């Protein structure tokens, strides 16, 4: 189970660990708990799966991965879990989700993401993936991204405010907004 301090900890680290010699101690000071407690809690949240990964989150666009395709497929429901698991094992795929179809307007139920340095590379990878995973008979669409209007990490506001325990570091939010949002969900990243 996760407790109120876990939520406060997530709120405190979601904008990023300080780049300093004792970063967990800095977080601990904000929360008035010990450095060891911070480390143990993060390790437990990772083991529990709530933290899916703990580490460097890169900005792929800035690193030259400017072609980003979301590919949507219409896969028979009885196959979708198997196909999803198979696609997820391909090195070029970053994300793979099942989502509900929206009738004839949007009949797709499987989504995956391929990031590449160019459109050509991404399309080649997709062609290879279709063959490797036997997807050739399924209808699909490739949606390349054009403009990025907003991108940031998911910011989860803490559900309780402990005295003056507001995070000083929620990116892009003024303190007033942060207080206003503290009982709802704040603002966000990959």
């Amino acid at each position, binding site marked *: 189970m996760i407790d109120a301090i876990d939520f406060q900890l997530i709120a405190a680290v979601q904008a990023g660990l300080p780049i300093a010699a004792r970063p967990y101690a800095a977080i601990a000071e904000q929360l008035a708990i010990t450095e060891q407690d911070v480390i143990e809690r993060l390790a437990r949240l990772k083991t529990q799966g709530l933290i899916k*990964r703990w580490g*460097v989150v890169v900005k792929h666009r800035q690193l030259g991965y400017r072609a980003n395709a979301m590919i949507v497929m219409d896969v028979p429901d009885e196959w979708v879990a198997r196909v999803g698991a198979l696609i997820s094992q391909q090195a070029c795929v970053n994300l*793979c989700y099942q989502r509900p179809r929206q009738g004839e307007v949007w009949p797709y139920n499987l989504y995956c993401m391929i990031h590449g340095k160019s459109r050509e590379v991404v399309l080649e990878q997709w062609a290879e993936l279709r063959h490797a995973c036997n997807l050739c008979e399924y209808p699909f669409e490739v949606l390349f991204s054009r403009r990025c209007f907003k991108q940031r990490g998911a910011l989860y506001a803490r559900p309780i405010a402990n005295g003056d325990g507001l995070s000083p570091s929620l990116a892009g939010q003024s303190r007033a907004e942060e207080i206003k949002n503290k009982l709802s969900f704040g603002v966000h990243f990959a």
Partner: protein
Amino acid sequence: MLAPLHKRLLNDYQQDFPLSPTPYRDIAEQLGVSEDEVLNAFQTLSEQQMISRIGPVIAPNSIGNSALVAMAVPDTDLARVAELVSAYPEVNHNYERENRFNLWFVLIADSEPHLKAVIADIETQTGYPAMLLPMLADYFINLGFELNLHD
């Protein structure tokens, strides 16, 4: 150009950043450099916007409710609608994509009613219907981003 140290830091610490009192010193020892070099390199990567953060990626829907939302907006009105959508604190990602559904964004809220209320508000404010696409299953285990740093 990325220095070899920068490449290692970007690639090797996406999954298991050290959970020890001195993580940057641990990394320095693993890579055979000084702690200051590691700290300076991360500072540079952060300033140059190559990393978003060192921190957690939270499993989808483990805290709160999130959903992908798509809208079909006339090109001439897209900038206005996108700006309106981005202004919501619940919106994390907001992209234009090449499709008749040309605006795609991810919302996260503390509950399903809150999520639906925000979407209803977006529909009212923008004047266009929104297609709600919540995640039903996540097939991907490893969310790290493998960089090809050899070219």
